[in-house]
């Protein structure tokens, strides 16, 4: 069967990619010269202390044994132990991940809505100076701009005018003196989330705008659209029925493929906005040379990206009959 076969093939590919990433992770942190010991935190740093640490973390065993142990631990969901924070790596990154998710979702939503709108506008008024050219080039410029720089501009020019918080994930005094209502918690979270999400959104909407525009252009020139127009269908009906539907396929698959880039954007955006998510955790791990946490974050992000690529493949397969196994 066409479907099952494809799914199996893609699943195997995804799993093997995860294994490659895991192995790469191991090689980078353990096999490269000097990295195993220099990666160790040692506060006193006397030779004896270092030796004891090496024993404790099993670094005196053969590389192969270490690799097998590492794989075994990962299979049990054990991402390792952060010597800097003295807690399991998973505990160190769990909360940041949960903090990042809503921000990234809202950011993606903003970028899709903005992208679809600008794309439709550009296609519909094709060739015009403002609605098409300026619109498209603005989208491209935002897309080419470093995300962290956009974040700084948002802090500089937007935040003060809107009176929105530029740091953190919640008001410091929320819930200290009284138990806040669910509404208060949600609206407070939303206020803190909107600026980083907006930054992410305007940094990424360009690609959606371009996709929507070009796919709309193709459809709008087709005979049946012209017929529809002749039949007196309203503009929005034509856009919706013929144009946008056609754009859905590339848009949806692209969305799944962009996860890696959304993650990358989130890392720097969080730094600008002091947003305690996975990006801030990454920066913290870099600052403290917490290689265990860095490894864990890398693995989690990689698996997320591999998974979304997998989903993209399946979607594409389902939506586009031309793809065969």
């Amino acid at each position, binding site marked *: 069967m066409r479907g099952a076969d494809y799914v199996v093939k893609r699943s195997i590919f995804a799993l093997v990619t995860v294994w490659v990433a895991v192995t790469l992770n191991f090689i980078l942190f353990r096999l490269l010269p000097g990295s195993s010991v220099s990666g160790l935190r040692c506060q006193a740093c006397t030779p004896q202390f270092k030796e004891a640490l090496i024993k404790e973390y099993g670094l005196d065993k053969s590389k192969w044994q270490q690799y097998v142990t590492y794989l075994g631990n990962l299979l049990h969901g054990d991402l390792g132990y952060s010597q800097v924070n003295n807690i399991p790596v998973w505990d160190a990154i769990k909360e940041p991940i949960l903090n990042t998710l809503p921000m990234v979702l809202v950011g993606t939503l903003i970028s899709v809505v903005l992208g679809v709108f600008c794309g439709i506008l550009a296609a519909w008024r094709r060739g015009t100076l403002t609605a098409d050219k300026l619109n498209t080039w603005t989208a491209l410029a935002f897309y080419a701009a470093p995300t962290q720089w956009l974040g700084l501009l948002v802090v500089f020019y937007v935040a003060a005018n809107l009176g929105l918080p530029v*740091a*953190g994930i919640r008001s410091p005094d929320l819930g200290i003196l009284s138990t806040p209502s669910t509404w208060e918690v949600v609206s407070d979270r939303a206020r803190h989330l909107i600026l980083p999400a907006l930054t992410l959104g305007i940094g990424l909407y360009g690609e959606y705008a371009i996709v929507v525009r070009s796919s709309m252009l193709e459809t709008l020139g087709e005979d049946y659209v012209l017929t529809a127009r002749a039949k007196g269908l309203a503009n929005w009906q034509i856009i919706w029925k013929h144009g946008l539907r056609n754009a859905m396929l590339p848009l949806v698959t692209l969305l799944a493929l962009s996860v890696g880039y959304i993650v990358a954007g989130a890392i720097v955006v969080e730094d600008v906005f002091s947003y305690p998510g996975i990006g801030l955790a990454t920066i913290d791990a870099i600052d403290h040379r917490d290689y265990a946490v860095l490894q864990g974050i890398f693995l989690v992000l990689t698996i997320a990206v591999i998974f979304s690529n997998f989903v993209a493949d399946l979607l594409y397969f389902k939506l586009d009959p031309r793809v065969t196994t």
Partner: protein
Amino acid sequence: MSTRRPLIALVAAALVVMTAAGCGTGASNSTSGSAGTVKKGGILNIGTTSGIDSLNPFIAIESQAYNAFVMEYPQLVQYGPGIKLEGDWATSWKVSNGGKTYTFHLKPGGKWSDGVPLTAEDAAWTGNTIIKYKDGASAVLAAALTHVKDMQAPNPTTLVVNYDQPVGNALPQLEQFWVLPKHVWDKQVGNNGKDLKTYRPEQHLPTVAAGPYTITSYAEKGTTVFKPNPYFYGPKSNAAAVALTYYTNSTSMIADLQAGTVDFVDQVPFDAASSVKNSGTFNVDEGAGAEVTNITFNSNPAKPKNRELLDPKVKEALEYATNRQQIAKTVFQGFAFPWANLISKQSQGAGWVNPAVKPLPYDIAKANQILDGLGYMRGSNGIREVPATTGKYAQPAHQMSYDMMVPTSLDFSGQREFDIIANDWAKIGVKINFQNGGDSQQAYAIETAGNYTKFDMALWDWVGYIDPDFMLSVLTRPQWFSWSDTGYSNPAYDAEYIKQGTLTDFKQRQALVWKMEQQAYDQRQYIQLVNEELVTANAKSWTGFYPQLGAYCKCYYTSPHQS
């Protein structure tokens, strides 16, 4: 913003006259503010760019964690207005047995926040436990109890501290001793004390505290909430709660200060200080901080390479070629001043700063003259050359080109400071290369590598205490691999260090301390650069701050109130 010393800078406020009615600390026992008019309640929001790394005193490093311990745990004595030591939990004390026994009388009636009575037994247990594991788990806290033999609690309100020899600075040292709840911690001494380091108070909130606050919510990268402990023996918090919020960068912290989300910033970053000050919307306080930045030289007598850097004369030339004024003006944006002493200006009021130790003027010609006089002539590329030497440490002729290690964890721009120094030293034919030092621990590993034989110089800083003991100790041989960052080793100096600690007569000790400061200056294990200022800012909706006291006083959090 971690620096080498865990404690936040305590400001030299000896000359600052406190206007409000006292700090409300133990011995004076006055209430803060003008009586009766203090508006209670509200949440005091404090912003910081360095988080509380742990609530466990045996492993915490960052300054904000130490602030939290002051707020949570009783101290025998603490600093009050005028930077004078006064009782916190202790009401009075007497010295006996030739200076070897201190007997403290403690305030009765205090309780831990879980309702268990606070007694002298808690203090004795904490002290004896720290002493017992001082070579292991409790090493971080043991410095405060140097020479303490044991502690005893003859009754719930009396604590006896026994020393094995008379000690000149017992009280200032004890100021750094926090009393922990015995009924919580005595279950954590397993594994030969190692479990002390693995216990996580943050997983058992609210913390059990007998100070003015307990911590009810903790987030290293978020907000930590201090709520009043109703059983505190001293003056209680004016605010209904204190919320300490961590920011990754000063930009967002200052934005929140301007937006009114933050009421108080207790260390305004140097790059933000002038704009906060000029905005006119905040009360800004500046004072000399305890942090002195320096150029650290490897001073290990057995250093194998570039041994000309052991020569005080060479370093004198380097000092002449260092523009302290420009560093203060640019790197610290004016919030620092030239300084040459190992001991910071904060200790001046207490009499520990030798006035004879002064910075050399910036004088390139003089520096060139000294190096010319030593016979280090410029090569074709403008860099001076050191002639070959013979003997045990024979070295071929080589250029005066060195790596200068700069840690990333500085609270100022190390890159800028490096640039200024490199530009000036190039004018005297000395080349320095930027070496990235990583965070404090990585940087310290670079300095200590190969038993202090690998590095040449570093750009770093020290945050000392009021009492000079600690800063003098960092040059001693026993501090190798713990606080020594120079590898200096001189038995005569070590003997003097031990002696100054035992002199109970102030004048005698002062004379010796001053002598040691002068020696250190002449030897130039460090070229001290500037003394940082501590800038605090608070919203005008709050008042009653004691910025000069830093978090050395429990009033630092308890006194502020809404205006």
